[in-house]
């Protein structure tokens, strides 16, 4: 593993204080506090409209907060653009998988490795040839060798989700934000992906924050859980604590079961 220099072991991996985000009249985030320790695996759950995706988007720099603060490894995020946030070691996936659909699966992965070197310029194509083997190895890891030469448009939804995850990993983030990594996948696929995510996160010592609707997956994977509702943090704790929290049962789990 090759951790970026921004890493600061003394601080929390993610420190969110009083985060506010409004869309016109609507308050999507209403003073969210969240602390995630390094190497922690944190699930964020909550009913629709709780502000989970908005939270991820603010953390990733896709949205600019209206108030509050975010620190990543002790570094304050201001109004940075997403690509600057990414350079701080924050990697993320999107609710609807976001890949390069006109490129082949392999080119997607090659690009991820190229991006992982924190460069954008470069006219020397031998660098890409050098990146080819690691890229193929990554495809192996996420099980996409079979479709390496297909354009992403032609591969299945699940493969795209896996590819996106693999690409983000290839940029070597220290903090990984996953927005519904298993949305729209079949049951078997879902478990497979969650296992993969966990394995990689543990192996690389990543800090993981993921939003997920699949409660089974959440309880199986997460070290701790944050429950959001109406733009606020409603409860926080270990899976056991959350499972036994009556209020959570009431507003969220109860509603679903």
């Amino acid at each position, binding site marked *: 593993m090759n951790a970026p220099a921004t890493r600061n072991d003394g601080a929390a991996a993610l420190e969110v204080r009083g985060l506010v985000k409004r869309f016109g009249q609507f308050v999507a985030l209403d003073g969210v506090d969240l602390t995630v320790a390094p190497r922690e695996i944190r699930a964020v759950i909550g009913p629709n409209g709780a502000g989970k995706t908005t939270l991820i988007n603010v953390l990733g720099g896709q949205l600019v907060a209206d108030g509050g603060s975010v620190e990543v490894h002790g570094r304050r995020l201001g109004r940075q653009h997403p690509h600057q946030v990414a350079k701080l070691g924050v990697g993320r996936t999107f609710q609807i998988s976001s890949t390069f659909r006109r490129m082949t699966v392999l080119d997607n992965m090659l690009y991820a490795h190229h991006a992982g070197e924190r460069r954008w310029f470069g006219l020397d*194509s031998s660098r890409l040839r050098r990146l080819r083997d690691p890229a193929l190895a990554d495809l192996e890891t996420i099980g996409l060798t079979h479709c390496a030469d297909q*354009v992403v448009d032609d591969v299945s939804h699940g493969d795209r989700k896996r590819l996106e995850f693999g690409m983000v990993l290839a940029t070597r983030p220290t903090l990984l934000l996953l927005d519904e990594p298993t949305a729209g996948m079949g049951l078997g696929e879902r478990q497979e992906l969650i296992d993969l995510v966990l394995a990689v996160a543990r192996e690389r010592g990543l800090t993981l924050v993921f939003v997920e609707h699949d409660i089974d997956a959440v309880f199986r994977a997460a070290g701790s859980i944050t429950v959001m509702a109406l733009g606020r943090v409603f409860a926080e704790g270990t899976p056991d604590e959350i499972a036994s929290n009556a209020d959570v049962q009431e507003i969220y789990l109860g509603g679903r079961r």
Partner: protein
Amino acid sequence: MAAERRRGDAWSIDWRLVAVAFVVVAVALHLSPPLVAFAIIEVLIFALYASALNLLLSYSGMVSFGHAVYFGLGAYGLAITIAKFGWPIWAGIVAGPLVSAFFGLVYGALCVQLTAIYAAMLTLACAEITFAVVFQWFDFTGGDSGISGHVPAMLGLSPAWFGIVVLVVVTLCILALWRVVHAPLGLTIRAVGENPVRAAAMGHGRKRVQLAAFVISAFLSGVAGTLYGIFHGNVFPEYVGVLFTIDGLVMVLLGGLYSFGAGIYGAIVYKLLDNVMAHYFEYWQLVIGVILVLVVLVSPAGIAGLVARVVELVRGRVRGSET
């Protein structure tokens, strides 16, 4: 498209193909009567211009509604440095593409501040301003009567030999463009162009990448324009005008978006219709229009898609999933 799907040679140039094409064109230039040689030269120059525009359309996710500016300013750079500044011809030839690249940098820096149709509209505004200045700044640009006589047309060479010069320059430029597209930078450009949100989340900001693509495209368009200026030994405001912009756009769209060869195929077909069909059928643009409609409805990959299919057929490995 097919070329990029295959694994083995996706990243390398098929040198045999390049060599064969080169020789065929060179021989054709020498066997043809002048008018045909002129047509070949036109195709070559526009293949470069359209390929440069194609870098924007197919790869960088930008649309330029004013690309003739960078084409025409190449020819103006050549003419003005020689006729007004008294530079030697070789210096003018070097200056042409650099002038284009400079304007590509300035206008591009503005245009990448915007996205999608807003950016395209800004390219239009920049182009119209440039055209107005070129058209009206009589003392400097010669206004609508242009500048001519600053360089001997075709450098005084015969059509065939000038054709060879153009062939060499265009081939080198298109090969260079191929290298760019398939270098790390090209990968960044394609990524940013296709999905800027994803690319940003991986650390690549859109603006400077698109600006780099814009400058490269402007430079190569400038090379094409400079060649065109030498070809005719003149320059006129038409060269930066809206018709040349539309010519380029139509060529790329005809050739087929999202393939490297779009500009080349498009230039061949468009100029063929322009030079041959126009003699027999005055309304050849109507034919182009109809072909474009067919491209959209039947074969969005354009001529490049058709060519790829034929190539696949010839090689006997058509896959069912291919379109």
